[in-house]
């Protein structure tokens, strides 16, 4: 078993209004097979026993799908590995003696809660505005009634894979949520089932996104690089297209 030692500079902040700062910890010996969050677990166990409050961080499934975990490691959302959530990042990607600067996702729309935890409820608020197909339970036609080309379904799934972790917003220098919104718009506007509300949805989601304090997209592509699911910025282009169609060609306002 290979062992490494790291210096951890972790952002500590007791609450949204208090002032935060970095605190430095020596990791002690770490097995390279450990995940990043397990490394934090080990640190926290030590902090608890020494009477210090452990580092608060969000996490749940620890298999890269729930979207709950996330922090910025040395300036990179979810750390240095491509297409990887923080929970799936392992210690073998770091070298003995490395210093890791660990910060929360930062954006005006994501208020800090504590230490590395931020409030991403803005994403839920966007979805509530129309990130769905309005069908009540029970009234659905047979599942095979409307054929969907296999490629279209795959494309829709490419977009629907979004786990809502917020790394796109965190990585964007403008704190923009276009990749998140673009993914949802793409998912639903590609499918025949999503057509009836297509225009309304595009207008409503963009309006809400703007109202929640997310920044503007500058086509800088950092979001795509940070996305643990590899969601492409072609989804942002589609959002731009959908919004234009809805704005200038539909009767919706």
């Amino acid at each position, binding site marked *: 078993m290979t062992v490494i030692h790291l210096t951890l500079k972790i952002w500590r902040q007791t609450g949204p209004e208090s002032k935060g700062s970095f605190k430095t910890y020596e990791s002690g010996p770490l097995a390279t*097979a450990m995940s990043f969050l397990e490394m934090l677990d080990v640190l926290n166990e030590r902090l608890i026993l020494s009477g210090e409050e452990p580092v608060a961080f969000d996490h749940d499934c*620890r298999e890269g799908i729930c979207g709950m975990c996330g922090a910025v490691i040395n300036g990179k959302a979810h750390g240095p590995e491509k297409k990887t959530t923080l929970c799936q990042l392992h210690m073998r990607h770091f070298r003995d003696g490395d210093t890791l600067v660990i910060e929360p996702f930062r954006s005006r729309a994501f208020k800090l809660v504590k230490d590395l935890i931020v409030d991403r409820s803005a*994403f839920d608020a966007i979805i*509530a505005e129309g990130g769905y197909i309005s069908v009540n339970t*029970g009234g*659905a036609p047979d599942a095979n009634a409307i*054929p969907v080309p*296999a490629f279209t379904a*795959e494309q829709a799934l490419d977009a629907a894979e979004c786990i809502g972790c917020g790394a796109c917003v965190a990585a964007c220098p403008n704190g923009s949520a276009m990749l998140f919104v673009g993914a949802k718009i793409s998912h639903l506007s590609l499918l025949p089932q999503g057509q009836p509300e297509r225009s309304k949805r595009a207008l409503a989601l963009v309006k809400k996104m703007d109202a929640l304090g997310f920044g503007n997209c500058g086509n800088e592509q950092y979001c795509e690089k940070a996305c643990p699911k590899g969601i492409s910025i072609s989804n942002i282009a589609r959002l731009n297209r959908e919004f234009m169609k809805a704005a200038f060609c539909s009767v919706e306002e």
Partner: protein
Amino acid sequence: MQLDHRIPSGPLTEKWDRFRFETKLINPANKRKFEIIVVGAGLAGASASATLGELGYNVKTFCIQDSPRRGHSIAAQGGINAAKNYQNDGDSVWRLFYDTIKGGDFRAREANVYRLAQISNQIIDQCVAQGVPFAREYGGLLANRSFGGAQVSRTFYARGQTGQQLLLGAYSAMMRQVKAGKVTLHPRSEMMDLVVINGQARGIVTRNLITGAIESYAADAVVLATGGYGNAYYLSTNAMASNVTATWRAYKRGAAFANPCFVQIHPTCIPVHGTYQSKLTLMSESLRNDARVWVPARPGDKRPPAEIPEPERDYYLEKKYPSFGNLVPRDVASRNAKEQCDQGKGVGDTGLAVYLDFSEAINRLGEAAIRRKYGNLFHMYEKITGQDPVKEPMTIYPAVHYTMGGLWVDYHLMSTVPGLFVLGEANFSDHGANRLGASALMQGLADGYFVLPATISSHFAESALLPINTSHPAFTEAMDTTKGRIQRLLSINGTRTPDEFHRELGLLLWDHCGMARNEAGLTLALGRLPKLKKRFWQDLKVTGNGADLNQTLERAGRVADFIEFAEVMILDALSRQESCGCHFREESQTGEHEAKRMDDTYSHVSAWEYQGEAQTPKLHKEPLVFENIQLSQRSYK
């Protein structure tokens, strides 16, 4: 306590129709007068919240995560079953019903399972209408695959993330009701107690995980969709926050706990690699379609796999089960892996792993074909272990995955506390002693979209619900109990963290109430529990205070409940002296070491009733009556 299953009379195929006709309905204009609390926002909770909101009820939905889109249903990989028979391969509602009952080793109710099979088709329709991007054939129709050794292709899937897509469908339907004002969300809230007034569930006490505030909410019915208790074992494939607290507190308020010893242990997970390990990751069992399971034939053989020549390898599943080979059901595969490791033939650093080898399939079909099929799983495996399964065989070991046991519910999904409904993995109802692959998603959605919305109205129509609010003394009492308990956890100030106790409990359960159980081991574990509990309450260390976000405190509360819960689990395992499904009692096996059911004595549901602190819970039995199918012994030889 009376266990009245309330199964409608009449032929099996007509029961659900008959129920829906005979049940009393609530006038649409009156539905808005009812308040319903839903705890949990996984598949069952989100689908129930959405549908109840659509019907006009006022719903409050609570979840422990920061967003209701994160319930652990999201991690389900394989797919969802339905009896559509789109592939024309002989599937039918009856076949899905039969397979599910048989897969559960004949320990589930016929009526519930038949209803599940009936509803399965509507679920697929509903999900497609919501925009769930299921896999398609080139012609645009839905694709299916065969899963978990089923003889028909009835599993609908969206790559390796079917659970995610279904959950996002249910979540979005619920968010639509949030927008409509029918569902109010309470994320980052943990249910701490159930409030029972006049024998009816009328509210809950929660802890706001951000502010630490203890809050109470009143309603006309409470729905628990809080998932399973697999994390009692510390290491499992469950999410870190999955816990037994909600169902356990309900149990302490009078809801019976059914079949708690039925725990599914999934055979293909990435093995444990260190004491710091926090969870285990599942590798889809579809891998077994093309891989061969083996161990070195000689115990203690520590050579790297490539240096072990063919004759010195033991392909134990193929040898033992010539007709099913590597595709035997989950419980059989798991037990055999343990047996091999117990004989000292395990591989890897810990000796607690077996090989899952793709080399034969790669030679036959080519590396490209295998990568195309399993690329994403290989990628996931490589990410975690740093090894490429094409170059060297995967190492796998069984891990706790799903709990068939849960709160006892009747045909209406109502527990023994009137007004308390339990859905999804949190109830015990449909999977008997073993769940089939791709059936958990089906059950969660059936309960939430279709069953509960139909049954809850009969509760409202038939019970006298007095107007109450949270100033009722029962709420004050429950809030005080919760606050007192939190204060107690904070004031111990001992020397061990909640996780240390949790690990100790997990190991105890894994060793003695895991894949194989026997009376001596179970008795030993049962004897150790009170000491563990005592040490927990004397030597626990929780930092910080209760008036803040405090993850150590959250964990401590959950571990305390797991320790208490473990007792009922072990008692249940002790009392069921037969082997069935996932519950393997070493005393009850055939001459060939296969599980031996005892239908005459144990064809029943075991439901445990709380008798008070430090009292042994009382066992009630609901006999299982099979009128439509012939019980048989499973054989995979």
